[in-house]
């Protein structure tokens, strides 16, 4: 399986060393740094009320979740996969991002005038099927940001100018739960991503993260982010015994 993919010569060396563990440890390093593997991104800090709008007032970070309350009932019916249309996968999503949390590049060709007009909204605000690319356009979770190409850039070549030694952490695990049957935690930050259904519902959602229950619009009633600090709070009976 995995071991078999290693070079035979390595195996010969290992026979001399007498430990498959060395070989596997080597693989471990590769997997940990470069491969997709079951690693949790540790930063699940709940998004503080971020004052994007500069009003000085805290903004409920979960307000966006209810944006689609009335408009998204169609999402329920469209969560089944359509057999003839390419459906997004988690791997495809991830391949568009340089590291977990990075803004994705634009994977489709961009008509030149769109570089000027930045008129991405007709497809990406409400989503829907685009015959041009034979797929459903993903919806943006942050439609109020209209300088789209500030963060999302097209891909016009696969070449590199110079090689790179870039490496990053692995993507977070899916389905991390406190116990069997519990609602999975949210393994990513909520900056610019407070409208859950744009990625987790609808026909453009990656199949691995598509929700089974889009009709429950109050997502964060059950699914919470995770702070990376201590696991639980505890303290001694006598306060003076506190470390």
């Amino acid at each position, binding site marked *: *399986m*995995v071991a*078999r993919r290693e070079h035979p010569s390595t195996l010969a060396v290992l026979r*001399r060393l*007498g430990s498959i*563990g060395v070989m596997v440890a080597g693989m471990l390093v590769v997997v940990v740094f470069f491969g997709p593997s079951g690693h949790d991104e540790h930063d699940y800090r709940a998004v503080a009320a971020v004052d994007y709008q500069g009003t000085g007032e805290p903004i409920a970070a979960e307000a966006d979740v209810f944006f689609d309350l009335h408009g998204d009932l169609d999402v329920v019916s469209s969560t089944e996969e359509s057999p003839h249309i390419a459906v997004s996968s988690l791997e495809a999503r991830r391949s568009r991002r340089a590291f977990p949390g990075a803004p994705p590049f634009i994977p489709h060709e961009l008509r030149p005038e769109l570089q000027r007009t930045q008129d991405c909204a007709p497809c990406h605000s409400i989503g829907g099927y685009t015959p041009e690319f034979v797929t459903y356009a993903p919806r943006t979770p942050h439609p109020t940001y209209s300088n789209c190409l500030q963060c999302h850039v097209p891909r016009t070549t696969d070449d590199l100018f110079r090689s790179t030694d870039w490496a990053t952490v692995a993507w977070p*695990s899916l*389905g991390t739960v406190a116990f*069997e049957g519990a609602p999975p935690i949210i393994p990513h930050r909520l900056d610019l991503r407070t409208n859950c259904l744009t990625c987790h519902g609808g026909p453009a959602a990656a199949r691995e993260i598509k929700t*089974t229950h889009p009709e429950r619009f109050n997502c964060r009633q059950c699914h919470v982010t995770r702070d990376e600090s201590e696991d639980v709070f505890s303290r001694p009976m006598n306060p003076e015994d506190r470390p």
Partner: protein
Amino acid sequence: MPLCSYVVIPRFGQKEKLGAALSSMEGCEVLPAANADLLLLVTDTDSLDTDAELRARVEGLPDIQALVMTFGEIDPDTPEGDPAGASRRRSLPVIEPGVAPAPRKRNRTNV
């Protein structure tokens, strides 16, 4: 003293039962995955013979779909330390041909 680890893929729905069966075997330590149908197994025995015996029993369990060895070490301090021999006896891990691992369960039904 051989110490080996494996990834154990249970037959569909048998993860808990298999985990219990393995845990009850002497020399086995089991760690089930929290979000997938597989288990990690570490066997720690006191001789090559005991190790072989244990592995035969494990492989004989009906609820195992596939067993993948991922680590094997013989402590060189023991008189039976025989790196070359041990390696030869350790087969490269394989998945049972023709059978794919159990599909990952993604969408949970309401509990």
